[in-house]
């Protein structure tokens, strides 16, 4: 397999890159932490330290203490930044309203995205979060890391930011949460020069693409989700950093119809792995499931006694197309009737596997409710074979973007544009024919927008000619 990065990458070694000494990283004791009080009164947040689920407040307090004990010249942002964030959060609870101002245009030169400007509206009370800008850092595909990378990121962000972050934001980026305008360029330079690492997308541009775990650790992935995600992210860096679109645009890559990154619900262009040959069956393993030797669904239901596994009830009867049956003790599948919903494969992963002739289905237009209601992606290209560098996929992408940039209104997502013009127009843009698989049913109303060229004789008619046959 050719897994070559686009540009050679130096291996990051934390020991060579680090800012903080071990002593600085271990600068408080557990007793100090237990008795540590942040500078604001935060009763509601103290309450959120209780209970079993990991407490973000408890975590915040230890970072607050560490910063409190670091010499002030060992951070470019004030040590109280975590305490002020907690203080403002408590105040937001008290007031039932957020205390972040609307908007704030900041960024790094030449980019229109990757930085979200944010300012407190209580700057006198919480001076260290007066600016609280976010930076989106483009995560490596499917979010695997080594500790050299993560520790280096941590030192950078402790030194030049708040030390608070999201692992990860909804779209997939590492989120650096809270820094001052002055530090945006220095952080960007450190990321680029030291870490060979770029920012992600925000605003009206290509948002940071993300993918499922794919072939790295899943038996069902029908294409290299990481590789396609990496290639398209790099190929479309300009679109990712420099907003030229009507609104945001998202790519997400799911390796199979189980859809672990939810591409069908939240990406303008959903890539979902699929296959076109037959489900592979290991009849011996089928028997082992039936005999109770292998737990169904990979043991997912082990917390409760559901009784003995019943292949008829749990697999065959639940098949949405009724395309499976037993012949004696042999499982049969009528694959041409199968819609590849994954249920039987999920239940008996050791017996059934997706076919080997795999590819990707392309669906378009998902979005959250703002404005005209939520949409899921519509099945448009049922199956596509594609190999690096994915030229045929890129051709489709660019046809879609050209149309959307030409016709899309300000803040109109692709899904809304498709609805405004109708699928037939979208098919014309993609230069593909219609298929019944694009709809759940044909239209029930007969209001067909016939085109003039489809109607014999055209639409230009003479009223005199008409009146020659019909009196007024």
């Amino acid at each position, binding site marked *: 397999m050719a897994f070559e990065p686009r540009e050679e990458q130096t291996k990051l070694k934390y020991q060579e*890159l*680090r*800012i903080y000494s071990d002593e600085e990283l271990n600068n408080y004791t557990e007793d100090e*932490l237990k008795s540590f009080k942040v500078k604001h009164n935060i009763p509601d*947040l103290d309450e959120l330290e209780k*209970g079993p*689920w*990991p407490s*973000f407040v*408890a*975590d915040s307090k230890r*970072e607050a203490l*560490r910063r409190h004990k670091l010499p002030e010249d060992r951070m*470019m942002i004030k040590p109280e930044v*975590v305490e002020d*964030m907690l203080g403002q959060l408590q105040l937001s*609870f008290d007031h039932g*309203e957020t205390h*972040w101002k*609307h908007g704030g245009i900041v960024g790094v*030169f030449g980019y229109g995205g990757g930085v979200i400007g*944010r300012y407190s509206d209580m700057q006198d009370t919480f001076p260290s979060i007066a600016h609280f800008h976010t930076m989106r850092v483009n995560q490596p595909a499917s979010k*695997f890391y*080594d*500790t050299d990378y993560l*520790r280096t990121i941590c030192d*950078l962000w*402790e030194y030049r930011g708040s030390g*608070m972050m*999201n*692992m990860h934001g*909804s779209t997939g980026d590492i989120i650096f*949460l809270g820094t001052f305008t*002055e530090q945006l*360029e220095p952080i960007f*330079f*450190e990321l680029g*020069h030291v870490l060979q*690492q770029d920012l992600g997308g925000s605003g009206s541009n290509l948002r940071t693409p*993300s993918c*499922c775990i794919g072939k790295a*650790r*899943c*038996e069902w992935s029908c294409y290299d989700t990481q590789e396609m995600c990496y290639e398209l*992210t790099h190929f479309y*860096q300009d679109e990712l950093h420099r907003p030229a679109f009507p609104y945001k645009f998202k790519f997400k890559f799911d390796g199979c*119809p*189980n859809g672990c990154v*939810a591409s069908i619900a939240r990406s303008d262009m959903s890539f979902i792995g699929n296959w076109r040959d037959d489900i592979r069956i290991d009849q011996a393993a089928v028997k082992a499931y039936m005999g109770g030797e292998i737990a169904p669904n990979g*043991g*997912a*239901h082990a*917390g409760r006694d559901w009784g003995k596994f019943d292949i008829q009830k749990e697999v065959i009867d639940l098949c949405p197309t009724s395309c499976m049956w037993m012949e004696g003790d042999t499982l049969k599948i009528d694959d041409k009737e199968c819609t590849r919903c*994954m*249920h039987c494969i999920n239940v008996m*992963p050791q017996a059934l596997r997706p076919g080997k002739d795999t590819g990707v289905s392309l669906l378009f237009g998902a979005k959250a*409710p703002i404005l005209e*209601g*939520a949409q899921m992606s519509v099945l448009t290209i049922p199956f596509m074979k594609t190999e690096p560098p994915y030229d045929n996929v890129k051709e489709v992408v660019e046809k879609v973007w050209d149309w959307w940039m030409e016709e899309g209104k300000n*803040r109109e997502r692709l899904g809304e544009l498709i609805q405004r013009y109708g699928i037939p127009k979208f098919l014309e843009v993609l230069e593909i024919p219609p298929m019944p698989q694009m709809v759940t049913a044909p239209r029930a109303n007969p209001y067909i927008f016939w085109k003039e060229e489809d109607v014999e004789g055209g639409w230009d008619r003479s009223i005199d000619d008409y009146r020659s046959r019909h009196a007024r």
Partner: protein
Amino acid sequence: MALSTERLGLFNPDKPMENRLTDLGPRHYWQYFPPVIQNNYGKWTHHEILEPGVLVHVSETGDKVFTVRCGGCRFMTVEHVREICDIADKHCDGYVRFTTRNNIEFMTDSQDKLDALKKDLQSRKHVSGSYKFPLGGTGAGLTNIVHTQGYIHCHTPATDASAMVKAVLDDLFEYFQGMTFPAQVRISMACCLNMCGAVHCSDIALLGYHRKPPIVDSQVLDNVCEIPLVIAACPTGAISPAKTEDGKKTVKIKNERCMFCGNCYTMCMALPLSDKEGDGVTILAGGKISNRISPPKFSKVVVPFLPNNFPRFPEVCSDVKKIVEAYAADANKYERIGDWAERIGWEKFFEKCGLDFTEHLIDDYRLQYDTYRTSTQFKYTEASWAVSKAAGGVE
């Protein structure tokens, strides 16, 4: 090159374009795969869940990788990430991964290392008592709740995210650590309708919601906003141009047309909506992403409004619990919440969950007809008898 400690680092404000590196993209993923992943890329044959939070994937080469999945907070500090690194260095040769749903996954290639890893993770607690790395989030159980920023960073939220998620997960912790549901349950949380978290296809979605129309800050509106854009931003046409008494250009809101989406505030800072009494939480249920058995579906609004009762949102926790418990008790194996609701009928969903059905739950927006029931197929519940009694002729 070490990280810089100069105030402005490598950036020279006098020559801002000098040495600027752009369009580098993300780092390449391959270097972050542990050897067992690199060696078996694309060769996995199947997996099993050994216990809640612990998976083994088996390769055609005979190799195995054991994964321990832990709940994580989306919001974490560098202290926490460094602790994750300590664990990864100690047990996993320095590799770790995060999932789409903010879980943390530690991987190892042998059973011995697995046992030590598990024990280490389970032993780590914050000084105030909560787990740092609870095992779970696998199989037919509850996994981590994905969420948005809330009051921690966002300028448009109608509620807080981290607090609500903490409260709900404390309440449902046994389900995170168990696999006792009929199928997986995915809860997602977004602080406002913008849904940067795209929660609209979740088994249960918790959604911050405004209920008061925007306040017009006429003193500044014309200076800070483009009035035609603000008017065009309203999906119901509730905003129209106006003038103040002293002749300033501004806008007026037809309050009865407002559906509180907040799109106008996104476009114009002079139209804030948030309000202590007005803001709160809506619960949606029955959505899914997966194509398994039934196609993906949207979540439906099942609780129109609950108050923002900080910090623990008892009303939200209670209604979520009602839904998951009714589902756990009643649904068939493999049935997601939405599949269950459709099989028994939504009227039975409300009855079994003990949730009130109010007029707010009947769609009256643009595609409302899609949800009209144009059939005599229904089930009798107390709600239907209440209608019959109100209409007369039934005692």
